[in-house]
């Protein structure tokens, strides 16, 4: 990395490529460069083998079959393909879609666009700010929202801001009973939690490489092929790659990188989950002790479901600082890279729709910082980041006085 002074705690936005992932990709930048669509010569053969191996590894990691993996350019495309693809194909069966107010834009925006085309979209609320299970979808409310004309529900596995882990298996059972397909945006969960499509019971699932120390520009959509086989319309037409569901020359180095990233996460999963949980808890301990009036956004750090599974992603912390503006706070500590609920991105000035959906005020949402811990986060990163935040808040509060 070019700037070793920065403490990077924005791993929900993107992660740096793991050198081991990059090493797996490099041979496909040079000697193995063939087009995986070329079946008639050795260059294409090697590229196709690499794609097949990668597909097998990725499928095995999530409990799927290789033919159920469709490679895409990333999670945004995967979500669009799943939602629009199913809605368009199944419109004759019905045009009702169910989702949740706290989904990522890459789910909410395609739904909104379908809404403008005459589809009926229901967005469910979540448990409000202040509750131990803040951010969680209510299973009974969800089941009650499914109707005869509902064709698809879309619920994320882990939220990208508040880290809440939704009860997907229970939602899937409700969908199954109602004959509704369930899509799950697992972009923040794959590689960070145990994810198995059979145990979850989902019909479609999106994920991408750059959130798990792989390259940007590649992702996948899991599409169930048995019990039931999911039917959806392709959104990009052409050479008919990926069973016709996604045309375009396969990004071989990217696919190899996705497989390497998934495999590494799987290998280190349980160690990383407990390590990041500990670091995250330490960060919260420091901030809650060192800053007056801080509030945790999202589920309690020790909240668990009926099976004892934590309700929150291990590396996630989202904190409201009350009278301090999140963007000002970021500017006051330039060596700590985090993101703020004040704006989803550098080009969108609206406060976080996720925090607003929790019932927080605009001012409260604008006072938040999101910390995303990751594989490369160390104990000293956490201590230094806590020092920096505590000092920055004190400075800003001093100025305001």
């Amino acid at each position, binding site marked *: 990395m070019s700037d070793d002074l920065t403490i990077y705690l924005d791993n929900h936005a993107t992660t740096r490529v793991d050198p081991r992932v990059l090493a797996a990709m490099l041979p496909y930048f040079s000697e193995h460069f063939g087009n995986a669509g070329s079946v008639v010569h050795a*260059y294409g053969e090697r590229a196709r083998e690499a794609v097949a191996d990668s597909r097998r590894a990725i499928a095995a990691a999530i409990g799927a079959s290789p033919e159920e993996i469709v490679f895409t350019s990333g999670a945004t495309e995967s979500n669009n393909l799943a939602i629009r693809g199913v809605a368009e194909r199944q419109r004759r069966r019905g045009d009702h879609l169910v989702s949740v107010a706290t989904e990522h834009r890459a789910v909410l925006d395609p739904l909104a666009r379908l809404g403008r085309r005459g589809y009926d979209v229901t967005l469910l609320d979540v448990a409000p700010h202040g509750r131990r299970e803040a951010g969680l979808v209510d299973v009974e409310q969800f089941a009650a929202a499914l109707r005869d004309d509902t064709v698809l529900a879309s619920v994320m596995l882990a939220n990208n801001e508040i880290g809440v882990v939704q009860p997907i298996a229970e939602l899937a059972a409700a969908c199954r009973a109602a004959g509704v397909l369930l899509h799950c945006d697992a972009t923040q969960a794959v590689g960070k939690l145990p994810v198995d499509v059979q145990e979850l019971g989902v019909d479609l699932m999106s994920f991408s490489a750059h959130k798990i120390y792989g390259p940007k520009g590649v992702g996948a959509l899991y599409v169930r092929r048995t019990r039931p086989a999911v039917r959806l319309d392709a959104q990009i037409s052409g050479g008919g790659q990926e069973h016709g569901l996604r045309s375009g020359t396969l990004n071989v180095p990217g696919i190899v990188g996705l497989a390497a990233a998934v495999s590494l996460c799987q290998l280190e999963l349980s160690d990383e989950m407990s390590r990041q949980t500990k670091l995250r808890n330490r960060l919260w301990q420091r901030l809650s002790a060192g800053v007056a009036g801080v509030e945790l956004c999202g589920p309690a750090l020790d909240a668990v479901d009926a099976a004892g599974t934590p309700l929150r992603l291990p590396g996630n912390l989202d904190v409201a600082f009350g009278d301090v503006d999140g963007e000002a706070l970021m500017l006051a500590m330039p060596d700590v890279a985090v993101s703020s609920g004040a704006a989803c991105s550098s080009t969108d000035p609206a406060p976080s729709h996720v925090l607003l959906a929790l019932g927080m005020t605009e001012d409260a949402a604008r006072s938040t910082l999101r910390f995303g811990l990751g594989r490369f986060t160390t104990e000293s990163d956490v201590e230094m980041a806590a020092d920096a935040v505590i000092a920055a808040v004190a400075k800003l509060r001093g100025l305001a006085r």
Partner: protein
Amino acid sequence: MYNSRMLAPINLDHNATTPLLPEVAEAMRAAALDYPGNPASQHELGRRARRVLEDCRERIGELLGAQMGGMRADRVIFTSGGTESNNLALRGLLGPWVGGHHVATGPDAQLDLIVSAIEHPSIAAAADALAEQGARVARAPVDAKGQIQLAALPDLLARRPRLASLMLANNETGVLQPIAEAAALCGDAGVLIHTDAVQAVGKAPVNFAALGVDALTATAHKFHGPVGIGVLLVRSGVELAPQLAGGFQQAGARPGTETVALAAGMRTALDAWQQESAARTARLAALGQQLQTALLAELPDAIIVGAQAPRLPHTLCVACPGVDRQQLVISLDLAGVACSTGSACASGSSEPSPVLVAMGLPEAVISGAIRLSWGAATTPAEIAEAARRICLSVNQLRRQ
């Protein structure tokens, strides 16, 4: 038969994909390590990634002849590659669809879309998909030389379509298309024109402004850049309906996390072309002349498809009457020469090439034609050896 383990492999399938230039691989490796941030993030790591990304975008636009900066700046939209760019161009320029009819075409229109009869599957299949949804699509015919018939355009344009999509150079025959002339006709008729320039960029001069088109597709992996990134250039003032929804990246025209490493790779590959463009074109053309001469010397009845038309300097479509193309390609693979029977998407397909069929070529040519394509690093020695192996394979197959 040859044993491929005994012969150095020769890649004459560069139209399927091209090897990365070493400096491109290095630029991507360095960018992946040096710019780990998300270009949409607000912090310094994000802003630094954003600056590099926008720098790449501007340079790529400039090198392709787009107007960058100022009040009338053209747009350079990053996509995942040529197929996505072509799909985005057709659907995005045709405009939003309401109840099976798109909004953009005027009430007097009898047609929505013109595509040529020789487009790549990423245009042809996208046009078919649109037709299934109710769009009225016409195919512009080509002549026996492999060129779109300009004379057929006025009648089609008089039916007031919204858009014409005509490729700049064909991926199977290499035949260059009269796009500047077509763009003038479209402009006069008030019809938007998009061109798929995927096979031309990095081999022949391509200038967005000089062509006079409204939109242009390019993809990096056809000119020694990485797979997984392409662009759609869109002229200033031309509306494009986004196809992906879900974020604010690229002003909403194409949401999704942008990838600095791939953009740096594309930019570096285009810079490399810029630095030697005239020399590379001349080198590729000389290799083509050498290959054609060597093949015709040994196989005087061989037919060069599109021989009467101006062609890309790196593509040769050749048919040996009496020799089946599938058998020849397999025999050449065993002999260590990689080539193809058509686009890589359709490779292995036994269907006749729609491109050659559209040209009205005789059955013997259609069933015998193979596509040979070379790249920036191909040497005269490789071409000489490839020609020798091709002639041997053809003669062997003819004796069988």
